[in-house]
């Protein structure tokens, strides 16, 4: 079972985990990313009030689906779900869900980390931060994210 979605609405993490639990798995691991008010380490004194998530619409769902398929083959998953939100998201709101189901826990946990690490460097989304003082700034990609994603080669 593979599900890959891009949407503006909130997602139901509990329903996603229930669906994965129903695939005959022994283990379901999930990750949720959330908008942090202290988002940009380059600007510690500016509070983030919201993020604006831009996507490359023709590419995103295929990229997420390809990622879920790669994870399924690599970790022998019984299911994988990736949901990414777009549009304006306030501080505290969930951005992304990555979840994996497998017979045993090591594969489920590893697949979940793989999904989110690879999504961060391979799926065409961009975040613009809106600060409390009215200013805005595009988030810079992190070298540490590239390193984590490359670690899965």
């Amino acid at each position: 079972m593979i599900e890959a979605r891009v949407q503006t609405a909130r997602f139901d993490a509990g329903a996603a985990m229930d669906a994965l639990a129903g695939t005959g798995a022994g283990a379901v691991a999930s990750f949720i990313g959330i908008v942090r008010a202290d988002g940009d380490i380059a600007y510690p004194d500016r509070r983030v009030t919201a993020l604006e998530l831009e996507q490359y619409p023709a590419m995103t769902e295929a990229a997420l689906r390809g990622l879920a398929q790669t994870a399924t083959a690599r970790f022998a998953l019984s299911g994988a779900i990736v949901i990414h939100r777009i549009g304006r998201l306030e501080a505290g709101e969930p951005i992304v869900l990555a979840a994996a189901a497998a017979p045993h826990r090591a594969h489920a946990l590893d697949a979940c980390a793989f999904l989110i690490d690879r999504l961060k460097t391979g799926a065409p989304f961009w975040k613009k931060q809106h600060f409390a003082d009215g200013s805005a700034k595009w988030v810079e990609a992190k070298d540490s994210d590239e390193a984590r994603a490359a670690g899965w080669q």
Partner: protein
Amino acid sequence: MKIVYFAWVREQIGCDAETAPDGVSTVAEMLVMLRARGGGHAAALADESRLRFALDQLMVKSDAKLGHAQELAIFPPVTGG
């Protein structure tokens, strides 16, 4: 071929999508052609190390041949998740 821009590349160029010039064989050559337009194009596309590319929705390096691709996307490194 259509060219699409995203995030600050789109903002600096001031344009979401435009038609590519003809007779260009690689992504890198296309960058040279686009920069020659000056203004937002020159500023946004000045530093190739800050740019990423996709041909028909697949990530490629700047030495990729355009071939018969329908769409070239130019954007900053992705920051989703």
